Structures are given as C-alpha cells and as structure tokens.
C-alpha cells in the first residue's frame, strides 16, 4: 500500500550520493500550520520534495453525515478559520440550492457584506504572515492590527470573532446592527491607512522583491492542470473568479475588477491579494449603498427555524422548532455541487441528500488542498528558504486542507 508502511530500513549513504534528506516540520516556527516537507537537498537547492498533510484531519465529512443540516454550520466555520463567514455562506448556498429555497434580498446583501469583510481579513492574515515570516515584522504586525479592526466589525454582527456560525438554512442568524454602515466606514478609514503604509513598506521594498519575485512561479496551463484557483491562478494572468464566472448572491450588481498578475510567482500572488482587498472594500461600499430593508430569513417553516418569540409563545412555533432541531430539515433527495469564491479560490460543496433530515454526503472542495498538491512542483529547483515564501503564498489553512 505504501512505502512508508514497510519495515524500517537504514538508508546507506551511497544511495543518496551528495544529497541530503531533511524533514521540515511538522512543527516549524516559520510555517503557520502543521505540515511536513520531506526535502531532498543538493546543498541548499531542493531536488525533490514530498509534502505530507493530514495533521489536522478531524473527519469533517464523516461528522457532517451524523448531524442535521443546520448542525454542520459550526463545523463549516472551522474549515478555513481565517474566513469562516465565506465557508458559512458557501455551505448555506449549497443546501439552499438543494432544497430549492430562495432567500430574501436583504439576506443576500448581508451575506455579501460579511463575506467580503471576511475575505479582507483572510487576505490580511495571509499577507501579514507572509511578510513577517521573511522578516518584515512591522508590516506583518500592521496587517494583524488591521485584521483586528475587521474582527471588531464581525464581532458586532455575529457576536464572535472567529467561530461565527452566522448563517442558517434560509437566512442569517440576525440582522446587522443599526450603526453598521458608520462602523464600516470608520473601520475602512483605518484599514485604508494601514494598507497604504504596508504598500509603501513592501511593494517596492528591494529585500521583499528579491525574496518574492520569480520564486515559486507556475504558468497558466500548469496552474489549471493542478486545479489551482483563486489568487494562485489569477497571478498567472487567468482572470477566473467564481464571483464573475458563475455569479451567485447579488455579485452581478456590483462594479469590481478581478486583479490578475502576469508571471504567476509569489510577488504576483502577493500583489493580487493586495489588490483584491481594495476590490472587496469597493464591493462592501456598494453593497452598503444598495442594501434594501426587509427580513433576513426566508419564510419557509419546512427549513427555517421560527423566531424565538414564536417558539416560546405558541405551540405551533414550539412544535416546528422541535421537529427541525430533532429530526432535521427534510431536504429533498438529490445532489448538487455549488462553488463560491473562498479566500483561497474555488470553495465547492458537493452535497448528497437522501431526503432524511441529515446529509448523506458532504464533500468540500478545499482550494488550498490543490495548492498544496502543486507546491512540490513549484519548489523543485528552488532554494530551501523559498519554501517559506511559497508556502506562505499558497496560504494553506490546515482546517480546510485536512478537514
């Protein structure tokens, strides 16, 4: 089954020649995430690399089969924990497509708003870590500070910073706070200033460019063959963004650009993410201007939990709540694949329902899983120090990659 399962064998020095084998990880201070690189080195040059994942496998797909559809939302938070709201929205959209459930317009705007704020936080995490890992500590801390501003916004909406569990089948948990627009404007003023600082600190910084440009490059056709999406694919010049290619929610009503690179290297990936944050801010501003009044939950007692006043105030509401929580939503049998644009690329949910209250199969298409698969190809021939920058730009999130 596997070479690793065989008896331990000491490898004679002559088998390797002048090459050296080194294990980097699974716990390495410069790699955020538990991952092991088995490197074969010629001096400092990487001859071969075998990437080992699975250290954070919690059996998400198996667990999801044991609970009702609504119970999966907390687990979905813990996939890509840098942008949990995007996972929430992606899973909700997939189940709603399977159930044939339409959400109110305001709910769709709310999902766009929180999703884009979450995307900025995701990119800030990736870029801040990437900067601090190669020594640009101050820029890294500035970005973490900017992320804090966004977490405050998310906390005001959902009540939690990371494990938000904000979406429900057919809607969201609660409406935006009254003063949300003012809060966002104040947060974006801070954010804009910090991003301008980071731009000045990094984008034309000689050391930064030397570490990033030309490293980990991959071409457009190779990137597609490896299944890369998101910033990794767009850095090669292919403007594939699920929000534009298969518009969902109300993304077709906003005016935003899809930033692309040309060389597909780490510097382009960095700049694509940087530009995407500005586009996300544009989307948020437009959504705040357009958002209509109205309910944030669909009115469909087959799938949507009743408001708490009804649960505690009427026998029908109590029964409805009981049936939905204990037996689950009877999503009609069938299967569906719904893709959304996650922080790292195409986040897809392939769901199979057998008509009972529980999912029959939940399959996540984790974008960074495919990025990690291509990592070996990107690193062959590079230097050992390039592992850190390339891995940083692939932006593996253990929860999503290993599930």
């Amino acid at each position: 089954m596997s070479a690793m399962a065989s008896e331990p064998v000491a490898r004679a020095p002559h088998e390797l020649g002048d090459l050296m084998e080194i294990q980097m990880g699974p716990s390495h201070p410069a790699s955020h995430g538990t991952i092991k690189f088995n490197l074969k080195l010629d001096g400092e040059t990487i001859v071969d690399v075998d990437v080992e994942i699975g250290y954070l496998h919690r059996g998400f797909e198996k667990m999801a089969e044991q609970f009702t559809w609504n119970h999966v939302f907390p687990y979905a938070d813990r996939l890509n924990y840098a942008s949990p709201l995007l996972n929430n929205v992606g899973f909700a959209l997939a189940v709603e497509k399977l159930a044939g459930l339409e959400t109110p317009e305001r709910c769709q705007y709310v999902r766009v708003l929180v999703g884009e704020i979450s995307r900025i936080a995701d990119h800030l995490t990736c870029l801040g870590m990437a900067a601090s890992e190669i020594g640009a500590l101050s820029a890294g801390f500035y970005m973490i500070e900017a992320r804090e501003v966004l977490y405050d916004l998310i906390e005001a909406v959902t009540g939690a910073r990371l494990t938000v569990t904000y979406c429900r089948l057919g809607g969201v948990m609660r409406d935006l706070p009254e003063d949300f627009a003012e809060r966002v404007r104040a947060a974006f003023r801070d954010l804009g200033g910090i991003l301008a600082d980071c731009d000045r600190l990094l984008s034309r910084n000689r050391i930064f460019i030397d570490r990033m440009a030309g490293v980990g490059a991959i071409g457009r056709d190779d990137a597609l063959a490896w299944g890369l999406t998101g910033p990794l694919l767009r850095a090669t010049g292919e403007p594939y963004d699920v929000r534009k290619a298969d518009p969902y929610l109300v993304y077709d009503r906003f005016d935003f650009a899809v930033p692309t690179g040309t060389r597909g290297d780490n510097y382009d990936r960095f700049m694509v993410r940087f530009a995407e944050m500005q586009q996300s801010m544009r989307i948020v501003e437009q959504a705040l201007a357009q958002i209509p009044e109205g309910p944030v939950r669909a009115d469909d007692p087959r799938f949507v939990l009743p408001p708490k006043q009804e649960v505690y105030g009427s026998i029908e509401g109590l029964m409805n709540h009981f049936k939905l929580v204990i037996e689950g939503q009877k999503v009609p049998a069938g299967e569906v694949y719904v893709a959304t644009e996650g922080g790292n690329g195409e986040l897809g949910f392939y769901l199979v329902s057998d008509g009972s209250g529980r999912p029959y199969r939940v399959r996540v298409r984790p974008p960074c899983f495919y990025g990690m698969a291509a990592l070996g190809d990107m690193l062959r021939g590079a230097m050992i120090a390039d592992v850190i920058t390339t891995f940083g730009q692939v932006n593996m999130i253990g929860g999503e990659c290993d599930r």
Partner: protein
Amino acid sequence: MTPEALLAHVTSQLRGATALPLQDTRGQAVVVVDRDHLTAALRFLRDDPQVVCDLLADLSAVDYLGRTPRFEVVYQLKSVTQGHRLRVKVPVDESDPAVPTATTLWRSALWAEREVWDMFGIRFTGHPDLRRILMYPEFEGHPLRKDFPLNARQPLEPERDPIQQPWFPESRS
C-alpha cells in the same frame, strides 16, 4: 454552453454515457459514464474544442451502501475558457473497487485520487503514487465508507524513528 446543449453534444459524441434529466439534478449538467469508457470520455471532455473542461475542480466519491453498484466516483469538471460546468459520475462495484486514473489528463487528480483511496478504498489503476494522504500509513480501514464505525479504535503503533525510516517512496527516488 447551456446545460441542455452541453449534454446533447456530449451524449451524441460519447459511447457509454447517459445524461441525467435536468429536472432531477437542479439544472446542473450530469453524465453517468461506465468505467470501461471513462478514460476516453474524460479525454474527450478535456480536448473537444466545444467542451474544453480544462479544470478538474474536484474528484470525490460517494458510498451508497446497500445499492449495487455500491460506489460512485464523481468528477466535477469546469471549463474556465467556455464557462460551463459538468459532473461526470462513474458507478463502481464493491467486488472490484477500481477506476482508471485521471492523472494523465489533469494533475489535480494526483492528490484527489489519493484521498479517495484513503477514504473509500477505491483504487485508481495507473496512479503513479497511490498512498494514503490524510490518514497515516498504518491506519486500518477506509473511514468515509458508510460501514466504517464512528467509534472505531485503531491499534497502537510503535513510535517511528525518523532517522531510520526512509520517507521518500521508492517510486519517486
């Protein structure tokens, strides 16, 4: 291409492929291909100038325990150039859980097929490096099978000596 046009084109060109009616699939284009025609079908879907599914977005499987054939291997294809999506499903019987590999067509299948092997125990003939990926090598069973118990315990493995044990699979050296 619209799902209707895509399905009509694909089924007219492919042997062993049946399109599922769109009203049963929430309007998504799905074809079921039998295993013997799979490689030819996937090659056609990638190379045909009207289909050009240049992105194998995902590859997974579903265990329909109690049904024959028991498994279904599912390919989520996307044409980045043409814009459409297509799902290809291959029924796989329990007695011979094996499917020809797609790694010669898309490299994204390299890890995805390892995961399906790991989780479902479906082999991919012709895969260059079919090892477990999320579970450790000594793990017993395939956890996403429906008959894999939730509370299954695993035998305790002795600690591995990282110096003594080679970690590069022989096929790669």
